[in-house]
């Protein structure tokens, strides 16, 4: 995706430090990011320039994020909107989705999670994930549920298989423990025990499909999460 077409993102966020950090992070990933610091400015830009994606903070001075979202949808704008909110109560989520948001992310969020959501929204409409993933000498068949590396068949438990599939689906990108807890374990509440569980599963998975082989695919990024990628030196 990267290089072929540059994704243009409008970031409507009044907190300058957050805006700058997100902008720099996204630009480093190859996106083109414009910041709008107020609701009025954001709405003006969103309606006059074509963007591929809008990142919208809900709590804004002047025009509230929900208002902008409602107004945009009233103008039949189909640009995907990812809502960023510090208000994590159920009502706010429902409100945001009702007003036409495509997804939401609660502050403080992990940056890899934001990237994953942006990629998911940008990918929308295209064919879904392939039933077979290949990365270097690793091959995973989702239908037959087999894992082969360097010609060797690797026996994985169901959980390990799901974990590996998720990592392959996000190959080359960092995956946080929070993402794994929610998407692989289907646990929405944040809790410490599950982080330990994830670490154990990652260690076991690594012992089965990575350590016995010459090159390293599964890396731990301390403090952030895990990434499955070909080693580049």
């Amino acid at each position, binding site marked *: 995706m990267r290089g072929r077409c540059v994704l243009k993102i409008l970031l409507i966020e009044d907190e300058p430090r957050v805006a700058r950090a997100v902008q720099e992070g996204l630009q480093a990933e190859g996106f083109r990011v414009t910041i709008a610091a107020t609701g009025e400015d954001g709405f003006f830009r969103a309606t006059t320039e074509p963007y591929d994606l809008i990142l919208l903070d809900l709590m804004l001075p002047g025009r509230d994020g929900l208002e902008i979202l409602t107004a945009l949808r009233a103008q039949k704008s189909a640009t995907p909107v990812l809502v960023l909110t510090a208000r994590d109560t*159920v009502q706010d989520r429902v409100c945001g989705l009702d007003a036409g948001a495509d997804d939401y992310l609660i502050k403080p969020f992990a940056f890899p999670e934001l990237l994953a959501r942006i990629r998911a929204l940008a990918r929308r409409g295209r064919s879904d994930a392939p039933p077979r993933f290949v990365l270097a000498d690793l091959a995973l068949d989702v239908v037959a549920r087999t894992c082969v590396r360097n010609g060797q068949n690797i026996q994985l438990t169901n959980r390990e298989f799901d974990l590996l599939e998720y990592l392959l689906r996000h190959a080359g990108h960092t995956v946080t423990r929070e993402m794994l807890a929610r998407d692989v374990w289907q646990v929405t509440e944040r809790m410490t025990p599950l982080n*330990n569980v994830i670490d154990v599963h990652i260690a076991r998975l690594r012992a089965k499909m990575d350590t016995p082989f010459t090159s390293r695919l599964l890396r731990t990024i301390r*403090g952030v999460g895990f990434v499955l990628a070909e080693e580049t030196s």
Partner: protein
Amino acid sequence: MKLRFSIRWRLTLWYAAVILVTQLVVSGLIYQFMSNRLQSELVAKVDTGYAVVEAVVKNSGGDLYDIVHLGQNDRFLLTKNGAAVYVTSAWDETGLPRELDRLERVTGGQTMAPDGRVFQTRTGYLAPYGYTLSYAVDATDSRANLRTLVMILLAAVPVALILGVVGGYFLAGRALAPLETLTRRAREITAESLSQRLPVENPGDELGRLAAVFNDTLARLEDSFERLRRFTADASHELRTPLTAIRSVGEVALQHDSDGETAREALSSILVETEHLHHLLENLLTLARGDAGRTQLKPRPTDIAALAGRVTEDLRVLAEEKNQTVELTAPADVWAPADSPTLQLALMNVIHNAIRYTPERGSIRITVCVRDGSAIIDTVDSGPGIQADDRERVFERFYRVGKARSRADGGAGLGLAIARWAVEINGGTIAFVDSDSPGACCRIRLPIV
């Protein structure tokens, strides 16, 4: 606006009112008694005099010559066919008329003379001789006596009233004095001196009971203040630890001319600590929202057995790492209305806690069953168990048995507090109970209907 008197004044007024009413009732009785007494004395006197005159008339056979021997001091009148036949000078002196039908009746056989004097009279017909006898006795004195009595009784009213008010005020003051002392002592107790207690002089009387109740309240207040103090201290400790780490790691990394690898290492450390902080904050927020009663649940029929199975399987790897065995005994399904995510949170924290405090090669048994209309989830471990006095406190925030303040073995000490919140918000109870195992047994009880 309604006037508000102090209790002392209200008591005083009540005293005075009671004394006044008592006095009026007693005075009335005295008056009634005295007036009856004087009346019957008069009647007796008249009857005696009448009987003497009657006897004289009868003894002399209707002849009136003997009657002069009775003298002129008795007041009587004899008439025949309406005309006076004999009258004493004493009768005439009273001014009473000689014609009987002109006698002015007052009440109870009393007659009033024209000059206002009142006489007790008796009039009768002496049948064989055709005489009518009328005998009178002066009632003025007894009436005057009665009036004097009334005067005395009335004069006693203000005296009694004054005595009632003064005495009542004094007595009320005496009765309320210990209350005043209690008030003063209670006012001296502040948030800083909650360990003070009110003196209980006689635990059986009303004030003793009041002081005991007050002391009980103080004890509970002191307890919650103490818990708040401990919570604040623990929370700031838990928050400061990662903050200190973040700060020092950042400072050290900046001070030295660190290469890329060292800088990355520092950044990673900072992120790890940030994650700790984030978790801590999330957990505290969950609990704070629970305290504020702002958590909305969507209870749906939930298969408790399946949920326990799922959580057990999720956490089994942690036990395997410590070579522990985890055994789940559950019927096919146990349905109870519950909010699955929060209940899962509770089970995860409880089972994780059991794994954490059970030594290597230990065992954890989880049993789901239905008893007395409740779904019961018992988590029994082979760890050291929990002392009886700690069983309640382990659910307090940041409380750790043995005060082992290390994060090396995981959480910040909020796990069981969150578990309790999550179970209770689902209408259940959670507690550590006795079991046949030497280890701890955590029992979650959820109502089925």
